Structure formats: C-alpha cells, structure tokens
C-alpha cells in the first residue's frame, strides 16, 4: 500500500523575543505520522494549548517549512512543490479549515467571493450558474445556503455560521486530505453532531482522509480512527482512538481525560464554588 501522507521526524523551531532576549521555541519536536492512500481515516490530534498542533497542520499544508525532517504527499516532498501550477494542484488535494474563522477570513472580502474563487480556481468549475451551484451545494452540506451567505462579509455572520462557511469552502475542490484545525469549536452540540457526521460521510463515501484537530474529546472518541496526543511539541501518546481514550497511559493523557467537564451540575453546586 502506498502512502497518502508521510510526516517523517519533523520539527519546527521559532525564534521570538526582543533583540536582547531572543528565545527559541521548538513548536513541533520530532513528530512522525503516516496516512495510507487506500485507507481513508480520521486522525485526531488533541493536546495542550500551545503544543504545536497548528504548527504541525501548517507544515502539512505546505505553509511553513519544517526546520528538520520531511513531509511527503503522495510520495512527493513538499519542499519540491514549486511554482504556482504545482502549488495549485497540491492545494486542490489538500484543503485547510483554519482555527478561528474570525482571523482566517479577510474582513473586507465578501464570503461568497471566497467560495466562487475556490470553485473556479481549485475545482475548475466553469460558468456562473455552475459556480453558484457548487457553492450552494457545499453550504447545504453544513446546514447553510448561498441565499443566506450571499453578499455578506465575515463579521455579518455568527461564529458558528462562519465556521461552517470555512468547512464548506474546503469541501468545494473535493480534496483527498482535509486538515481541519478546531473546525467546530464555536458550534453547539446539536449542529456539531451533524458536522462530525458529515466528516464521517466524507471518509466513508468519498474516501477523504481527515486530520482533525480538536479539544473536544467526546466527539474525538466517536469520530476518530486514530488519535495523537501532543504536549510541548511532542506526541506523548498515540493509537486507536477508543483504546487510547478508554485507557490512557501517559500521565498527560490521563490528566486530559480527567479534566473533561461533565455536563451535569455537581451536587455541591457549581464546581468552582468550592
């Protein structure tokens, strides 16, 4: 079986701080993972805030080069994807959903324009009507419609609506790999369930592989095939999702599991009223 994605011992170092107090941050520290081509799966990445999840995602999307290590998509090293044609071909197949849609969208640009541009450039759809249909179809998958989004700017939608537009946009080019960075963080449980089902459907019916970054262990439990748990740039535990979450081995994984708030009012009143 050939590999769809190979991430090989990848690290990323950033320099920050003032002129005199330069610091090195190892955002991602020696991470490896692999997705097989003929076996679509949902690989969930959870972990501490600041543990390198977004940095890992950006490297897989070819937006940030690794400091060391290599990433290959369908056997081709991302470092060798040069020129706009090659880049476009890659983006058609590997689509992002960025963390925090309020930051991801340009506030001055109408949302329908994003969708139309994606349909035209990434999915090669031609003709106005067909482009509109492509956008409308993708929006309907996430419980919205072009009629609702038409002509509106990012700040004119609610957080959950904007997040769903971001997911819809990523679906238009029918990618082989979706890299979704906290795609449902602003969406209520009921809608979240339908979007998570959509992700499952994409994997089952369209053979899409998904890297799903989240803080929501409950959805991670039922939607993921595999899980990686990150802390301080390193993968501290990984494996079959339910096995890991049922019986976490690493102390950090255990802490994470035990910190999940239960949706019940504690008998003594609110938990922090102690």
């Amino acid at each position, binding site marked *: 079986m050939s590999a769809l994605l190979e991430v090989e011992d990848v690290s990323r170092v950033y320099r*920050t*701080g*003032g002129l005199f107090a330069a*610091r090195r941050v190892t955002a991602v520290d020696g991470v490896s993972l692999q997705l097989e081509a003929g076996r679509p799966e949902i690989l969930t990445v*959870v*972990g*501490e*805030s*600041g543990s390198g999840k*977004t940095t890992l995602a950006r490297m897989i999307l070819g937006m940030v080069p690794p400091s060391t290590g290599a990433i290959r998509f369908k056997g081709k090293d991302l470092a060798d994807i040069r020129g706009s044609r090659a880049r476009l071909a890659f983006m058609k197949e590997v689509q992002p959903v960025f*963390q*925090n*849609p*309020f*930051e991801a969208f340009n506030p001055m640009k109408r949302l329908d324009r994003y969708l139309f541009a994606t349909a035209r450039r990434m999915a090669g759809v031609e003709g106005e009507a067909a482009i509109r249909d492509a956008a409308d179809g993708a929006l309907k998958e996430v*419980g919205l419609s072009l009629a*609702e989004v*038409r*002509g509106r700017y990012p700040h*004119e939608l*609610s*957080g*959950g*609506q904007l997040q*769903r537009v971001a997911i819809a946009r990523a679906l238009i080019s029918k990618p082989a790999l979706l890299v979704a960075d*906290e795609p449902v*963080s*602003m*969406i*209520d*449980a*009921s*809608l*979240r*369930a*339908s979007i*998570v089902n959509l992700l499952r459907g994409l994997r089952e019916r369209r053979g899409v592989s998904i890297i799903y970054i989240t*803080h929501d*262990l*409950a*959805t991670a*439990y*039922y939607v993921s095939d595999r899980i990686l748990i990150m802390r301080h740039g390193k993968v501290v535990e990984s494996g079959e999702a*339910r096995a890991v*979450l*049922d019986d976490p081995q690493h102390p950090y994984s255990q*802490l*994470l599991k035990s*910190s*999940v*708030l*239960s*949706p*019940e*009012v*504690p008998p003594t009143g*609110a*938990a*922090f*009223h102690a």
Partner: protein
Amino acid sequence: MSEPVLTVSGLRAWYRTSAYGVSREVRAVDDISLSIAAGEIYGLAGESSSGKTTLIKTIANAIQPPLEVLAGSVVFRFGDRPVDIHRISREALGKIRWKHLSYIMQGSMNVLNPVRRVRHTFFDFAFRHIGRPKPEFLQVVRDHLQRLHLAPDVLDAFPHQLSGGMRQRVTIALATVCRPEFIIADEPTTALDVVVQKGVLAMIHEIQRELGSSIIFVTHDMAVHANLTDRLGIMYAGRLVEEGRTADIFRAPRHPYTAHLIASLPRLGDTAPKKGLDGAPPNLADPPPGCRFHPRCPRASDICRREAPPMAELSPGHRAACFHPEPERPA
C-alpha cells in the same frame, strides 16, 4: 434582594441591511427582558445564530450599523445611580468600559494589535486603570498571566507568534486584569484544551468571588454552564425562551428546546452522536410565525403556530416561553 446591577427590558435589536435591492431585517434580539444581581454568574446558551452575541453586543453598547436598537433599555447600576447605557455620552461610556464593565468579544484574539508586542497592549489598556508605577504594574500583569497558565514571555511576543489558545488567554487577561465589576465574556474558552480551560474558569470564578463581580458568560458548551454559572438563560431564534437557576434547568427543563438540548448532551465514551434537532435553525430574516420553535417542536399545537408564547414564571425564579411546557419535576 438588592437592586440588580443590570436590568434589560423589552430589548429589540435588529440588523437592517439591503443587498441586491432586497432589504432585510434580521431579528436577532426580539423582546428580551432579564436582570442580573451583584455577584451573580449568568450563563447564556442557545444554538448557533440564535442571537447570543447580538444580545451582549447590545448590552455592552458595542453597536454598529446595520445593528439598530428598536426598543427597550439596558440599565446598569454601578454605585447608586442607574445609567442607561444607550443614552449616555461617549465619554461616560468610555469611563464605564474597562473600569466597571469589560467585554471579551467572540473570536476576540483579533483585537490584539498585530504589529505591537503584547506588553504594549497591556500598557495601552490597563496601565491607567491600575495606577501603579511601571515595574509594579508589570509584576501585576505577570502574576495575572500566570494564573492563566501563561509564561511571562508572552509579553514580548507579537500576537501571531502565539497559538490560538494563548491569544485567547491574553485577551481574557486584558479584560480581567483591572478587576472590573461586570464582565461580559462571549465564548472565551473555545480555543482551550480542557486542562487549561479548567484553570481559566477557576481564575474567572476567583475574581468574581473576591470582588463580588457579576458575569455574563456566553457559551454553547453546556458542561461549562453546569460547572460555572448560577443562573442560565436559553436563547432560541432571537428570543429568550427559558431562564432559571442552572441546577433547575439541568434537572427539569421546561421549554421543549431546552429539554432537547439537555437530553442530547454529548459525553466522553459515546460511540455515536446523539440525535440532533430535526430541521434547520430558522432564518431570522423571516422567522416562523407564532412560537419560533414550533416547526421543530414535538409538543406544538395550533396555538403555537399562531401566537408567540410570552415568558411566564412557572415556578419561583424559573421562567419559560411555552404554551405546553414540560411537566414540573419537584426537586
């Protein structure tokens, strides 16, 4: 009971836009009344696009066209004089903000100035209010950041050098470092892992206890409400449909929408998603007549299709807007 710190009466705030020659009114806040006491944590929940953010924007007077307040009032009582926040001067509003009232916007990581180091943003917003010499001020800020599990070096960073959850915590730190009497927070913990989230909630609660502050805490995460809030308001399609003590609402919700919400909460270990609500959230530019929930409601009857149910007190301190509420379940 003492005078409430916040009294919202008959509030109606709509977005009025026109696009493609069609004008539309999005009725995001439609006739909402509520009040909040000193020292109370009031939670606001409801599905995506039900109007939570619009309601608190209106309460904080962060109103920008096309949002318009059509009716009602928002009255705060800091000290002993009541102020209608929609009827005071810009200067007076500026004074109230930060010192008395702080508002953490949804997705507000983007309020951080991208070209300035975080430390400068703290100086811009908080230095004046804290009124201490520079080194002491910085120590206050560092200590405060630490309570949010942030290392002091975030002060030297530019916003883009921080992760999403780190930026979210920086904005929480900015909004709380001056220890305001009234905190309005819109989904402030969505980008945090559960361990850090717990720490942040504990810090917010601690400040609230030390100062007797009041908080409006908006989140779709019902587990956060269960563990943090004293009272809970549930919104559906621009209306407040239920309100009561958090424990009562979790134990015995009366509005059918709330009942569904509580019954379908996800838990770690579920092997399939709980069933979502049938049908889509209503379009607020053209909401269903009568009760806005009726097209998706298992208990709907004729009257629900014709008339909007008023908010009514069903048991002490527990209100719901429903002609056929779920049965009362005594504790």
